[in-house]
């Protein structure tokens, strides 16, 4: 397997599939051999643009005809479990777009099937494989924090002004997003939660979720969709985490802060930068002069790195996805562990289950969305 070309298939030929095609085309020793979409025309339009002739509207037919090594599933999440099961049962490794599955139970079952058949699975948590996220992981592994993380903060914002997404979702109550247990949040927050799951223990002792509907979403006739979320988490080792999702915060945030017993790190994925906060003490008024200069130096270092990476063509839009896919393919070729440990995928799914249970069914929902006047 290690020297041969991997034969790739994509199931679900909507918007995100284009990104997968671009990422796959950057990776050596693999090629897309088939496309599948319930709507054959969708498969054909993608096939026409990326030069793939084998297009199908039935996954079973595609698997039988092509037997791909890897299947990327980029359909709405409700179909992830059944499609991934079918692919695994027929012997293909599976890359599942986020959210991995609708529930943690489904995620667990898929992982069991994959392990039983010695196949590999991964989730589309590509934010964890950007250049700065990889650098952050390296520093944590080298002990930069000075011990286990004390506290984590993950901020993730989303702009409701993107009418190409919110228009169809809010305009159509039967849109698949409305049928997800966590609705709009379900389709968006897994990136932010997965970043926390990487540094949390599997056993969580507390999760408290509060959700609300923003005035902006209310004005867009958001119905029962919630778009403001705050979550507090504690694991059994005492590490705490905060997750903030907002459609209102400006400028938009996509950050992870890890506070250790000695030093801290701030990952800012909007500006592709990693700020190292090293604890030092200064005499008297120097406390007010030196740290800002050090912050400026950190920011300049990031800017310079980004310029160099851009010039070296290492900084591009879908670096994280390309890196994740590349590592996933390598894990298949070399029979190694997949790039995202299954425990992280499972923990992410469990946290999301708990959040949606609380905000849509449970007692913690403090503010219920007000009905919008006709």
């Amino acid at each position: 397997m290690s020297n041969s070309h991997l034969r790739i298939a994509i199931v679900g030929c909507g918007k995100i599939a284009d990104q997968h095609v671009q990422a796959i085309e950057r990776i050596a020793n693999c090629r897309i051999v088939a496309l599948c979409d319930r709507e054959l025309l969708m498969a054909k339009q993608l096939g026409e643009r990326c030069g793939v002739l084998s297009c199908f509207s039935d996954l079973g037919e595609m698997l039988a005809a092509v037997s791909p090594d890897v299947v990327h599933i980029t359909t709405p999440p409700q179909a992830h479990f059944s499609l991934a099961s079918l692919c695994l049962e027929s012997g293909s490794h599976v890359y599942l777009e986020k959210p991995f599955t609708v529930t943690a139970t489904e995620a667990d079952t898929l992982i069991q099937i994959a392990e039983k058949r010695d196949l590999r699975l991964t989730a589309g948590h590509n934010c964890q494989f950007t250049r700065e996220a990889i650098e952050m992981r390296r520093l944590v592994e080298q002990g930069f924090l000075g011990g286990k993380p004390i506290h984590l903060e993950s901020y993730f914002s989303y702009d409701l002004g993107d009418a190409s997404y919110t228009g169809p979702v809010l305009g159509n109550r039967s849109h698949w997003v409305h049928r997800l247990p966590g609705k709009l949040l379900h389709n968006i927050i897994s990136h932010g939660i997965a970043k926390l799951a990487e540094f949390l223990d599997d056993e969580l002792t507390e999760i408290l979720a509060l959700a609300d509907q923003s005035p902006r979403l209310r004005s867009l006739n958001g119905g029962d969709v919630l778009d403001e979320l705050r979550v507090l988490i504690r694991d059994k080792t005492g590490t705490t985490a905060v997750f903030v999702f907002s459609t209102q915060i400006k400028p938009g945030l996509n950050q992870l802060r890890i506070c250790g017993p000695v030093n801290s790190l701030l990952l800012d994925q909007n500006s592709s930068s990693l700020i190292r906060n090293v604890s030092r003490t200064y005499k008297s008024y120097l406390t007010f002069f030196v740290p800002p200069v050090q912050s400026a130096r950190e920011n300049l270092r990031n800017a310079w790195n980004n310029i160099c990476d851009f010039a070296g063509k290492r900084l591009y839009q879908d670096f994280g996805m390309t890196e994740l896919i590349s590592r996933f393919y390598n894990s298949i070729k070399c029979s190694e562990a997949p790039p995202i440990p299954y425990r992280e995928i499972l923990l992410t799914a469990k946290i999301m289950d708990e959040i949606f249970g609380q905000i849509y069914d449970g007692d913690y929902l403090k503010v219920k969305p007000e009905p919008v006047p006709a």
Partner: protein
Amino acid sequence: MHGRNREDRSSQLQVSKVNQERMVLSSERILVTGSNGFIGTRVVDALLGYGFSSIRCFVRPSSRLDGLYKVLDRYSAADTVELFQGDLLSPEDCQRAVDGCSIIYHLAAGSDKSFAGSFMNSALATRNLMDATVGRGELKRFVNVSSFAVYSTLKIQRRGVLDETCPLEDSPQERYDPYGFGKLKQEELVKEYGKNFGLPYVILRPGTVFGAGKRQLSGRVGIGTFGVFIQVGGFNLLPLTFVDNCAEAIVLAGLKPGVEGEVFNVVDDELLTSGQFLSAYQKSVNRFFSVRIPYFVAYHLSCLWEKYSKKSKGQLPPVFNRRRCAAEWREVRFTNQKLRDRLGWKPRIGLDQAMASFLSQFSPR
């Protein structure tokens, strides 16, 4: 005021002439998709003006209907015009929407920035609508509203004429134009249904539609991508069509007998260059800093951008490329001869009045 009366009389004469020649009765049902859009509301307006009362307006549940309500109020047509809420991506909704319709004016289009989204909302939605009509004998005309974006001007000579016989874009991926891609595929499907299922279609390709209700400048005038407005060329004619004139052409395409399978470009008689348009805009709206670069410079820069994009495997997306540059900024001329000859169309609103209407929306109230 005097001018307005003359224009009203002229419109009445035109309405009367069209009413004599049209192939449907005013009581027959007409479906308009995208009816709450910039052009769609004017199409509904024109249809009501021609005396059609049984109009079904296909709207998305989330759509803002203010503009459409204003039109209906003006004709006191709120009771006779049906607002049909649905999704063109739902075959069931399409089946219900086309039921009993003699004419379909299909204006709904995808404005999604992705190729897949644009294809879905343009081509797939059109396919659903056409599927719903197959086997129903009642449909007399399917008016498909396309766009100038389907043309390729890469091989048209400078100052050559762009008409309905000109080549269509054969590489929309390279042009990096999702909207154009969606429209091209939509047209292909319409022609296929015409051939295979006898769909009585007419295709209209409007140029740059302008008027009150659309505030942004066309990309054919220039681009603001880099923080400063860059005007390319300045001598290129804009294929302008005032929204009311365009709506009139669309309506006629549904009413005129004997034009099945035909394609019509929609541009007005009097046109402005992009330089003239920008100048008028800046005089009336606000003066902002703009840089003008010659077409040949833009073409070569686009060429460089395109090469770098390919070499870097999309580090810079190929948003600037030779095909787009030629399509938007090359100096070509336009004709509406076919529209005039075959549909009997002539612009109701002249250029001066059209520009005044367009610019009036920026006046402080």
